[in-house]
């Protein structure tokens, strides 16, 4: 068969698996780095907005999130970016079983991260701010820990309670201890002027916290979907082209490291500073 006469009708896109000699990379790697550049601009814009909003605000709430839980989640994510590298190394060493093990652990760690995060989110929606008609402002929890109540919802519900049992927060260090602390207050509903949970509407800090961490969580979920696909259906491509599959896991790892990196910025900015 005269090789020179073969027209390129099967049309393979060049450099999907092997690197182009003069650029030194395969296509997907450049594509992914470009995607990450775009992601840097996306999160960069949100972090810049955070700075601008914080600089422009007279007071900035602190201590609303638990640092130990945030630190735990940080270590969970760091662990997952180690296992994702291990899964790639396993493929480099031609060990598909080991790849499944490490990729599986990465997915589990990512799921653990999301679970902890949703626990933290839930916590915010059961924490309340109350303003009474006499001007008293309180923060604390409603008995039974109801999820995301508001005054309108409370009044609209069929068996609306006449009063709510309210446990005020303990005061912060250095603040005077009001009489109401450590006791359950019975607040008549008609005396309440405003009732809202600590959702994104509560203040600008919570707004940017939910937006940034929510967008980050979406990236984690996206990563989980892709990694589940590699974990479950990867053997097909592995049988067809080991090199290409290894590349795919490599770029997935790159993405996963970026997701981890965003959290490394998010954690101090939202929990500590």
């Amino acid at each position, binding site marked *: 068969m005269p090789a020179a006469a073969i027209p390129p009708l099967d049309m393979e896109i060049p450099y999907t698996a092997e690197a182009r000699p003069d650029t030194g990379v395969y296509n997907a790697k450049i594509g992914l780095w470009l995607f990450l550049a775009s992601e840097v601009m*996306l999160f960069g*814009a949100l972090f810049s907005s955070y700075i601008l909003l914080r600089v422009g605000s007279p007071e900035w709430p602190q201590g609303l999130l638990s640092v130990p839980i945030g630190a735990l989640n940080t270590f969970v994510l760091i662990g997952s970016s180690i296992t994702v590298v291990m899964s790639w190394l396993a493929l480099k060493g031609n060990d598909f079983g080991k790849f499944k093990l490490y990729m599986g652990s990465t997915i589990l760690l990512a799921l653990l991260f999301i679970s902890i995060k949703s626990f933290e989110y839930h916590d915010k929606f059961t924490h309340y701010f109350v303003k009474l008609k006499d001007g008293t402002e309180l923060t604390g929890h409603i008995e039974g820990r109801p999820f995301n109540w508001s005054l309108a919802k409370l009044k609209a519900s069929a068996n609306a309670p006449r009063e709510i049992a309210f446990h005020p927060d303990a005061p912060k260090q250095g603040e005077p201890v009001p009489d109401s602390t450590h006791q359950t207050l019975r607040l008549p509903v008609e005396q309440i002027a405003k009732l809202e949970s600590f959702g994104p509407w509560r203040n600008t800090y919570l707004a940017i916290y939910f937006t940034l961490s929510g967008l980050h969580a979406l990236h984690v979920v996206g990563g989980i979907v892709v990694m589940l696909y590699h974990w479950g259906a990867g053997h097909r491509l592995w049988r067809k082209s080991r090199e290409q599959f290894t590349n795919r896991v490599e770029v997935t790892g790159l993405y996963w490291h970026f997701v981890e990196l965003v959290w490394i910025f998010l954690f101090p900015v939202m929990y500590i500073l």
Partner: protein
Amino acid sequence: MQTAATAGIHETAHHDHHELSFVRKYIFSTDHKVVGIQYGITALLFMFLGYGLMALMRWQLAYPGKPIPVFGDLLLKVLGPDMATGGIMSPDLYNSFGAMHGTIMIFLAVVPLAAGAFANYLVPLQIGAPDMAFPKLNMMSYWVYFVGGAIMLASFFIPGGAAKSGWTSYSPLATVADLARQIDGQTMWLLGMVFLITSSLLGSVNIITTIIQLRAPGMNWMRLPFFVWAQLVTAFLLLLAFPPLEAAGIMQLMDNLFGTSFFLPTGLVVGGQMLEVSGGGSPLLWQHLFWFLAHPEVYVLILPAMGIVAEIIANNTRKQIFGYKSLVYASMALGFISFLVWAHHMYLTGMGTKISTFFQTTTMIISIPSVIILTSLFLSLWGGSIRFNTPMLFALAFLPMFGIGGLTGLPLGFSATDIHLHDTYYVIGHFHYVVAPGTIFALFAGVYYWFPKITGRTMNEFWGKVHFVLSLIFMNLIFMPMFIQGLEGMHRRMYDGGAAYSAAPDLAHGLATAIKLNVGISHAAWLLGLAQVPFIINFFWSIRNGRKVESDNPWQATTLEWQTPTPPPHGNFTRPPVVHRGPYEYSLPGRPQDFTPQNQPD
């Protein structure tokens, strides 16, 4: 392909050909040429719609409060009495159409045409690649764009109508414009934008990777046609400038749907009542994030146009374009500096004179690379024996039209003169000169120029020239008077076309005449629509009935897209091209022909 050496190969080819169903071949196609054509047709339809909205608005401006003839009843039937009582355009409808005219023209028509259609079709051909680097992503990019466009269209028909806070969607207006509704036009706008941004992300990653990775052997960086360079810079702008708008869009969506206050300041009063929000947000923040996209976006609109014009000028002057390297470096500089000029849209926001001075300086600096490009293109004409065909006429008209658009931008770039001109019709005249007789003329030039490669037939020359002459006349009759109106101080957002100025005739005596120009402008705008009829008929008629091209290279061009079969098959080239020379080797002495294709060996 037909002369394939062995029967085996022929069979494979045959087999491949039949494997693709109609749907895979023309609808969910991964072929960059089909995706390019899909982008092109969709974008042209959106351009027509964008024009239609403006044509209706021009009636309201010329004859405020009078029922719209012919289309008034239609508006009443389709959009309901809230929007068009008795066929009269309501203020809300005017605002909706204004916002959507801008949105559609920029995000759904011109950018998809320039950076979607032309880039998709031509970049792989011009660099000698079989397809884009990620064909599936390419298909996805079109369909995501399609969904974004569908959402934008659907927003016209929801209660309250489409977004009505300008294409700039300034907060807090964008959030409070339709407070009573949970899902309003603005929410739809933001959702649509998320899709459009995703589409442009997929497209730009694809274009950049393709240009870096899939250049044919010998196609080194300084042998790339200027069009490819322009698309490369454009793709970088789309890649890096859009995400901040996405971030801003997410925050505005949070403001609209979840009651956050990213862009709502403390103590905001709406309709005489304090707004029940936490406050503490910054309306300026929206403007910064918006213009961080929207200024580079201007160069996204203009760079591909410059690329198209450069190709056509080189081909039709039969000589090397002047200063190829200057063009390349200038476009890179343009791309880079375009990220540093955004706040010149915000001189009057009270952001501070020091910041204004900084952005005034960068704005003056960015005019240097723009002038380098335009001057190089002008000088390319020097000593050429010019062929005045339809694509060349449009390309030639682009130069002075873009020149007017660019130069009238300078008084807006100075923070002192901008105080008078800001938000007047002068601004509208300025940016329309850049985009309408500028970019859109270049796009028309591109359509006429590459039509023979895509269809194998040429468009009719005579009707092409009719289309050109009429478009040139009416474009200028529309936008030139706007400079006069703007200099007189006529505000750009008035629903009654400035009729309210008659309440204070002594204060605004010049405006009395400026307002009268509205009628002439409107008639020119409607005639511009009529002038497109020859184009539309010519376009569709020529697909089947145009004069067949005699060769694969009817313009005798040098670049690689003309060295393929017509139309190029799946995979583009019959044999992998090898590049031996630069992109514009025209009229070199001692050669047998006046052009030497890039893939011709020495």
